[in-house]
């Protein structure tokens, strides 16, 4: 049995030895570097652009401006193509623009022998005019009774990087740090108006994405440049500073929630109005706000729900996909509001939730389908126990006045396991047996660090009866080779691929047993594969080893063939996943700081395929959630659109010393629509730390803080307003 075991990652050796090769680790002798010239104003128009000086600089290969690029607007959001025009992504991006929409917009690009020459060319050659007006609505929203979440950034440690060149067939090859190689291929084709078959996208190891690489940002440009420069290699390697303004961020949200409930604590209605700010371009803007609403819709399924959302443009950096895609914003508001309601009702927040949350058998109204697996109540009950809720509540009664306050908080979430029925859900896998009886696996599912290659190998091993170490996953996605799969987003990979893996592994197993029949005359139905051997089902008696069988299948002169199986499968289910965060905090009023004493995340993600790796996903998500709760915010000057903190020193993502011990617990259910009983896990852990901490803060201080992050600056203002300082 391999599923459910904490096997080591299939890429662990490569990653601890430095052998794992990321995009920057590939080198072409002819490689040039390209650098964007970005606007220094947030709104306006390029009046004049003089590139002659730059072009004549030694070492400069070429300069292109908005005048040189195809006049084709394309959408950058990494969604599967939609046959339904109503679900088409918004096409508003040109490769380079004359019309400046935010500070950092791409006006021109310099291609040079090295970075210094490119930078110098940028320095000396441009004048750009325009007007600074258009006040930014975003950063100054402060409204009472509303909830506000700021722009935050992904901070994957590897910045965006892509390079392109042209191959022997005159096709464009793009190597890129992307979550979505197959989608990138389609969008590059669209942006440059060239057939998809002329493009090959390769994704090597990737240093994190968290949604920011679910957008096609550099790929069309490097493809364009190599095409213009007769196939020479051209690389764009964004600096951290560029990455933090020129890629994507999380949408800031302004949310109003009204919750209606009866005296006995039954929630009757929840009305949510959300305004999402997508920044200068649409990217995922149209879908993030709706996803945030739909994914929380089954949390309190017996209440009447109304969800309105608007998405607005603003002259600030572009927002896109980011871990949990709208849910952290919406659930921060909803779960804060639920706690306020519980307070008014005079009911313990856990009891209040237990009374109202979804249970197995409830109808998910949006999907109009019965919920087949749900362990949310168990999560709440278990969490109450683990954090010693009742005991601590009593103990903390004496910490409700004075400089040091203490409190407990909880918040719940629901999420999904994919994007169906909004988009297609499709996954592909190819299993190929080697001469030595091991199996190579090719998948379109994109490994971005979340561990999908490892769990795919576990699933294959489980069903085939081969040892985990005998399953080799090809750890590169390549659109020429990998079966079609749209990529890593929506926490979908392990769930959506599960049925494809199951089907393919069963198919290969059948073929193996058929060959065993040819070799032994035992009926294939009477045989099984256990621990790399063919055995008789009735008594587990050894028949022959897979190794012998594989050799025979390849080299016997008459019988057999190379054994393989390939499956591409669409999924038409999308089970919800559930969970909650419990947190215990201390608030230091004079120093305006929140300290987390204990934090526990509990998850129902169906069957846990690999407990250690699953916990690791939770750790990362919770830590990102803590950052968003307490310190992270892209700070925008509201007059100019200037970003103050686009670097890792001034943007306060948590360091090792800022993250408390994170506890994690799984309530395992079995999801019948999944190949191995598993559901989504990747994104959800990041959703509820913010509202749980906000609710604990309410418990500790009696104050509602309805705007993130709950940073010292903000706490100071709140304490001042309320006479605590």
């Amino acid at each position, binding site marked *: 049995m391999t599923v459910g075991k904490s096997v080591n990652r299939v890429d662990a050796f490569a990653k601890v030895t430095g052998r794992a090769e990321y995009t920057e680790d590939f080198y072409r002798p002819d490689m040039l570097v390209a650098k964007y010239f970005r606007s220094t104003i947030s709104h306006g128009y390029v009046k004049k652009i003089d590139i002659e000086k730059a072009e004549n600089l030694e070492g400069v290969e070429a300069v292109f401006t908005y005048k040189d690029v195809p006049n084709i607007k394309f959408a950058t959001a990494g969604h599967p193509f939609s046959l339904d025009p109503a679900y088409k992504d918004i096409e508003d991006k040109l490769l380079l623009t004359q019309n400046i929409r935010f500070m950092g917009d791409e006006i021109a690009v310099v291609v040079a022998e*090295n*970075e*210094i020459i490119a*930078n*110098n060319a940028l*320095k000396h050659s441009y004048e750009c005019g325009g007007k600074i007006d258009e006040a930014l609505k975003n950063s100054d929203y402060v409204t009472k009774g509303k909830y506000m979440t700021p722009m935050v950034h992904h901070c994957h440690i590897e910045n965006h990087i892509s390079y392109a060149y042209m191959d022997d067939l005159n096709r464009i090859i793009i190597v890129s740090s992307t979550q979505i190689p197959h989608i990138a291929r389609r969008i590059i084709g669209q942006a440059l108006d060239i057939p998809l078959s002329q493009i090959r996208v390769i994704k090597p190891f990737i240093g994190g994405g968290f949604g920011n690489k679910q957008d096609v940002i550099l790929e069309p440009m490097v493809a364009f440049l190599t095409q213009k420069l007769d196939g020479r290699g051209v690389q764009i390697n964004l600096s951290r*500073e560029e990455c933090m303004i020129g890629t994507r961020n999380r949408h800031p949200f302004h949310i109003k929630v009204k919750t209606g409930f009866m005296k006995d604590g039954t929630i009757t209605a929840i009305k949510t109005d959300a305004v999402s700010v997508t920044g200068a371009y649409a990217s995922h803007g149209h879908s993030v706000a709706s996803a945030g609403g739909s994914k929380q819709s089954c949390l309190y399924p017996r209440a009447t729900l109304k969800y309105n959302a608007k998405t607005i443009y603003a002259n600030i950096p572009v927002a896109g996909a980011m871990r949990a895609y709208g849910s952290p914003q919406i659930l921060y508001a909803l779960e804060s509001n639920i706690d306020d309601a519980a307070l008014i009702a005079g009911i313990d927040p856990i009891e209040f939730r237990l009374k109202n949350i979804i249970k197995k058998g409830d109808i998910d109204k949006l999907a109009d389908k019965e919920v087949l697996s749900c362990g949310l109540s168990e999560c709440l009950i278990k969490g109450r126990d683990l954090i010693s809720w009742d005991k601590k509540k009593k103990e903390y009664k004496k910490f409700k006045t004075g400089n040091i306050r203490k409190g407990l908080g909880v918040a719940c979430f629901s999420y999904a396991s994919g994007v169906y029925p909004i988009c297609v859900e499709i996954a592909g896998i190819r299993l190929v047996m080697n001469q030595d009886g091991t199996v190579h696996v090719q998948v379109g599912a994109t490994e971005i660090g979340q561990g999908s290659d490892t769990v795919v190998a576990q699933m294959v091993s489980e069903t085939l009866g081969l040892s985990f170490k005998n399953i080799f996953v090809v750890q590169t996605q390549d659109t020429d080779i990998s079966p079609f799969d749209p990529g890593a987003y929506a926490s979908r990979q392990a769930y959506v691929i599960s049925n494809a893996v199951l089907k393919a592994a069963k198919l290969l197993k059948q073929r193996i047993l058929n060959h065993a029949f040819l070799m032994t005359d035992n009926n294939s139905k009477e045989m099984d594969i256990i621990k790399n051997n063919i055995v008789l089902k009735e008594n587990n008696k050894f028949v022959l080893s897979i190794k012998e069988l594989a050799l025979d299948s390849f080299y016997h002169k008459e019988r057999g063939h190379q054994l393989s199986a390939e499956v591409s499968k669409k999924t038409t289910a999308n089970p919800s996943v559930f969970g909650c965060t419990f947190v215990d905090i201390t608030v230091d009023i*004079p*120093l*305006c700081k929140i300290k987390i004493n204990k934090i526990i995340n509990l998850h129902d993600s169906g069957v846990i395929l690999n407990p250690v790796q699953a916990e690791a996903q939770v750790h990362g998500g919770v830590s990102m959630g803590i950052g968003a709760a307490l*310190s992270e915010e892209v*700070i925008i*000057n509201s007059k100019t659109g200037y970003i*103050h*903190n686009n670097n*890792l*020193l*001034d943007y*306060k993502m*948590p*360091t*090792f*010393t*800022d993250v408390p011990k994170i506890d994690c617990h799984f309530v395992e259910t079995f999801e019948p629509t999944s190949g191995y009983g598993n559901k989504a896990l990747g994104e959800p852990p990041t959703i509820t730390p913010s509202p749980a901490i906000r609710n604990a803060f309410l418990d500790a201080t009696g104050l509602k803080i309805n705007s993130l992050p709950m*940073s*010292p*600056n903000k706490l*100071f*203002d709140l304490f*001042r307003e309320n006479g605590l*300082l």
Partner: protein
Amino acid sequence: MFDFEKYIKPETIDETIKYISENSDARLIAGGTDILINLKKGKFENLTLIDIHDIKELKFIKIDDNKNILIGSGTTFLNIIESDIIKKHIPMLIKAASSVGGPQIRNIATIGGNICNGVTSADSASSLFALNAVLILKGINGKREIPISDFYLGHGKVDLKETEILIGFKITPNNYKGYFGHYYKYAMRNSMDIATIGCAVSLKINHGVFQDYRIAYGVAAPVPMRCLKTEKAVINQKISNELLNKISNMVEKEVNPRTSWRASKEFRMNIIKELSKRVTKKILISVGEKI
């Protein structure tokens, strides 16, 4: 690649002084944690770098015959943290040194660079202010010594004369013997951060009475500073909570924090006031005083 124009690597202090006098717009590089970053960010053009990274004469921590503690400007924060002399005599400086950035930065950044940058947030500055550190400078016209409080002229501006280089710091025994000190860095993260406010206190206590009291701040004004009036009012006073509150109210009148996108003046003031009490109290408790 760092975009500098000219690179000079002297072997000695005197050679360095010669090169500085020949290249008036040159910049010295020691640990590089500041200048290399600024180079990367394009803050300099056609820069001449004089590299003092490997000059051994600038790397020392020692006590001379008069019990002065001498710290070379090329001493890294790692050297300070690991120094038995510092550990024994001025542990507050260890606290300050270990609050700088992260390990990689502390392992290479120098105390001389930290001070010569002239920024108010320098973590070592407030402690050196509280210790009445004296700076030893050398130029073409010879050596001179000045107190650290005179060295800072304004934000990013220090009193380094045209051909001068900072050799090191001198802390005389009357400024550390019998003193207890502590440094507290208030920042938005626990590591890898710039101080929102830095507070260093050094004090001498006898039978519950302050023999001496020094309180210095970083980021409370354009340059690091001491609150001299407050200090004067504390000397010869008995330890009490009322006195702590008085300190907190008095420092408010001496400091001059400003509003930036990082934090507001009012918020910084709140932290300045609170830290005066907490840091003082922490020292008192650590030496067994009751409060």
